């Protein structure tokens, strides 16, 4: 039988991108700011979320979507703060995708939420490829990971709207070169917003809280 060549030229992640766009339109219409927090395992995503909740819960109606390969440990920690939390277990999957978020949105009390924080699966590769419909992508890097990460994971640092450098209290113990890190990140992504923080000591966290507050407030008023 004759072989026929069919030209396709179709983006392999096109369906996910379309679903993400639908999610984003829905969130914009509903007046909800969705923030996707991505990092390596252990960089401090859960700590960042817990501190952010504690600081902003009187100012925003916060909800959390927890993405993990397995377990509900993080969701349990978040639910102790008495805010709506939904756990997604990816059962081995290395990232969340727009379909999982669509389903999660249908299962959350959205009338009570105007700031929805997503804790993505700890991984610097795959989450950068899968848009969820978030309006803000936050990348968290902790000092012990080293300042060379932007060179190793350029896509993640190119995609991020905000980079938080966490665990700055460990600086005296480590050889992390903050200037060369910031230079590399800005080189990839000149418009990125960078905060240097320690979730443990609270250093620099006020700037992050006020920035995030200004982001959801500007959305509420628009």
């Amino acid at each position, binding site marked *: 039988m004759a*072989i026929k060549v069919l030209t*396709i030229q179709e983006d*392999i992640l096109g369906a996910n991108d379309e679903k993400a766009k639908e999610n984003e339109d829905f969130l914009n219409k509903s007046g909800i700011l969705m923030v996707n927090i991505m990092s390596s395992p252990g960089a401090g995503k859960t700590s960042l979320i817990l501190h952010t909740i504690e600081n902003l819960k009187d100012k925003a109606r916060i909800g959390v979507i927890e993405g993990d390969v397995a377990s509900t440990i993080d969701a349990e920690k978040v639910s102790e703060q008495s805010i709506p939390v939904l756990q997604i277990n990816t059962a081995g999957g290395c990232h969340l995708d727009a379909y999982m978020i669509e389903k999660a949105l249908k299962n959350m009390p959205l009338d009570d939420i105007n700031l929805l924080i997503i804790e993505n699966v700890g991984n610097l590769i*795959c989450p950068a490829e899968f848009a969820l419909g978030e309006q803000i992508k936050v990348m968290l890097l902790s000092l012990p990971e080293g300042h060379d990460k932007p*060179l190793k994971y350029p*896509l993640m640092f190119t995609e991020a709207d905000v980079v938080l450098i966490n665990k700055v209290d460990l600086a005296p113990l480590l050889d992390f070169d903050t200037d060369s890190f910031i230079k590399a990140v800005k080189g990839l992504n000149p418009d990125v917003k960078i905060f240097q923080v320690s979730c443990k000591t609270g250093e620099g966290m006020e700037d992050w809280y006020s920035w995030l507050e200004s982001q959801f407030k500007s959305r509420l008023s628009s």
Partner: protein
Amino acid sequence: MHELSITENILSITLEKAEEAKASRVSRINLVVGELSGVVDECVDFYFTFISKDTIAAGAVLSIQHPPTQLRCRKCNTVYSPDGQDWTCPDCHEQNSEIVSGRDLYIESIEVE
């Protein structure tokens, strides 16, 4: 590890297009995968063998092209391919470049019978 989702998408787009064309078999899938997409060919091949079983794409050859990463220096506008992880501009030695290509991830064409 995101190769499983990617391979599932490759298969579903392929089957949809092959069925539209009333094909009885898919013999080859031509993919374009940029170096920056972080996709490992062997993983895609491995997953494809499993998930395409019992479909008309079973046994199809996956031909994967890897266009090289190209960057443009924001200072001097030189377009260059980086040397591994070193993204420094070869002309002005600045580390301030935007990605021109290397993020591609698409199905170029399929060959069907």
